[in-house]
């Protein structure tokens, strides 16, 4: 089944059935796929109010989208890497290879970092979001603890 053999309207209809977190995973497949997502989801992406980084139980950063289209939707989580866990796969996120995990425990993809890379990881993911959803979306760091721990990223986010 070759998705790119379908007419654009059919591709759009298929992508319309995916949630944000699935579009997020799809965006790592290829550059042409990012182009397709952006061109077919203009209306949906225009309905995004904000993309929010929030602290969850002080151990992970939860990223969710607030939109007219589907209210609040979890997009991803960013957390410290568990060395015992072998289920990671790597993705090139804005030029940096990051570890991700999909599990039954969470219904969204989880990006993992080593403590020394924490800020670089969130910066790379944030750049990917800007590339995917555009710079007209409001990016919010919802928690003071996050603002403190991601000082450089907070500056980056405040630029948008």
């Amino acid at each position, binding site marked *: *089944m*070759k*998705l*790119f*053999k*379908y*007419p654009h*309207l*059919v591709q759009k*209809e*298929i*992508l*319309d*059935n*995916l949630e944000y977190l*699935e579009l997020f*995973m*799809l965006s*790592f*497949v*290829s*550059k*042409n*796929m990012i182009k397709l997502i952006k061109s077919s989801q203009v209306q949906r992406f225009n309905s995004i109010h904000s993309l929010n980084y929030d602290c969850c139980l002080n151990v992970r950063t939860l990223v969710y989208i607030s939109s007219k289209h589907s209210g609040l939707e979890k997009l991803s989580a960013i957390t410290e890497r568990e060395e015992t866990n072998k289920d990671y*796969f790597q*993705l090139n996120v804005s030029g940096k290879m990051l570890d*991700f995990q*999909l599990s039954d425990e969470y219904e969204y993809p989880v990006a993992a970092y080593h403590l020394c890379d924490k800020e670089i990881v969130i910066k790379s993911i944030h750049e990917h979001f800007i590339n995917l959803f555009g710079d007209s979306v409001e990016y919010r760091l919802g928690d003071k603890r996050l603002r403190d721990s991601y000082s450089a990223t907070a500056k980056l986010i405040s630029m948008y």
Partner: protein
Amino acid sequence: MSSTEQGTSSAAPAEPTTAPESAAAPEVPESFYYVHGKDKVVHKVSAGALQHSALIHGMISNLGYTEEQAKANPFPFENIDGDILQMVVDWCNQHKGKPTPPEDTNLPKQKEKLFDLVLAVNYLEIKELLTYCCKQVAMMVKGKSPEEIREIWMIPTDAEDEAAEKEAKKRAGKEAAGETAAAAGDAK
């Protein structure tokens, strides 16, 4: 050319079917049309079932065929495989005159069949069935990693896309050069 009778019982293929919802209404003979795919097998389908297809419905409205003319001139869909057209015809018959349910679990599970069905349904402009099919195609990648998605939807990598683009440019260049040479030859 073989023929299958769709939408009617095989015992009385030419007799109009009486839908339960029209039992109180005066009996109006239902008109039938004929379609065939790549395999040339002709399917007899009622006008009511064919209403799902905007393309065929438009063709019927424009042509104003009598039943005899319709039988003699089946609509040819040479770009659709016989088994796929059969699936489409079956779906149109099953959903004739009925509101379409929110889900359809009878779609093919095999990737290639579903792919061909989507192309056929898009061509025939059967909106509801296209919606179901697209939902099913989308379901295939839920909870999958990017590599798994690439495999399922056969999406080329960036390197493959770049190589294909280079190849296409090379081919276009060669064709343009060939055309220029041919034009120069004609001028002589």
